[in-house]
């Protein structure tokens, strides 16, 4: 994802802003790290460049 995407992203639960933490970059792409809600503190992982913003109760590992 591009860092500029943060301008329109929010927490799926409470709709508050997200902050990028522990970001890994590949050129201008953010390929890893966490998006953390500034209100509730929930952390959403960026997995191979794609943020996983599923609500936590739908996020558990997909069976192989």
């Amino acid at each position: 994802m591009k860092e500029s995407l943060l301008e329109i992203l929010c927490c799926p639960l409470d709709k508050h802003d997200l902050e990028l933490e522990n970001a890994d970059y590949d050129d201008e792409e953010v390929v890893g790290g966490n998006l953390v809600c500034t209100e509730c503190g929930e952390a959403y992982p960026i997995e191979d460049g794609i943020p996983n913003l599923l609500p936590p109760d739908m996020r558990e590992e997909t069976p192989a």
Partner: protein
Amino acid sequence: MAGDQDRESNRDEVARREDVRDTYDRIATHFASTREYAWPEVEAFVDAHARDGVGLDLGCGNCRHAELLAADCESVVGFDVSRGLLETGRDRARERAFAVELIQGDAATLPLAENSVDIAVYVATLHHLPTRAARRDSLDELARVLSPDGRALVSAWSTAHDRFDATEGFDTTVEWTLPGGEPVDRFYHIYAPDEFEADLADSDLALRESALSSGNCYATVAGAEPTG
């Protein structure tokens, strides 16, 4: 205890939504390979309402409609519950050199800011949400993220399709057959056309036009009116 039943029912619903995600993760590559072309109804909508700004393909699958939006929009978001499908979207964007930002999420709890979207395509996705409450939530969420002068195209499979005899909406599963012949069930809610319009009318979206085409209900909608 009613609370226990609510929790039980919530667990059941989450499980059913995860089933849809897992199904599409499983069939993603084959499914995407059969979804080469944009729908003509979506092309007509994008031609009529295309604009600068942010485009959203909600339930993007392999991003064939995100690709249409990318021709006009400043930026385009491809959004899907299935990680496997998003990866097919990323492949298509690379092969065809269009730009799309991919997000994995749930259509009933959008992680997008209010009024952040100028044009949206929400086709063939609403019917995969397992309860009317979840479908209604997703329409309200679309209204929240769509700017008041933004437009979205919403579609769902309908009872008007040749393969169905029913006149009332119903829940069903429709098999997807993998290349080896293995069947995989997918949940669908098949909408009666008047039920589709009623759900839109009850939502925060403003209904502008509706139509039936190729066995699908379509509606062009606008975002929620500003309050206060």
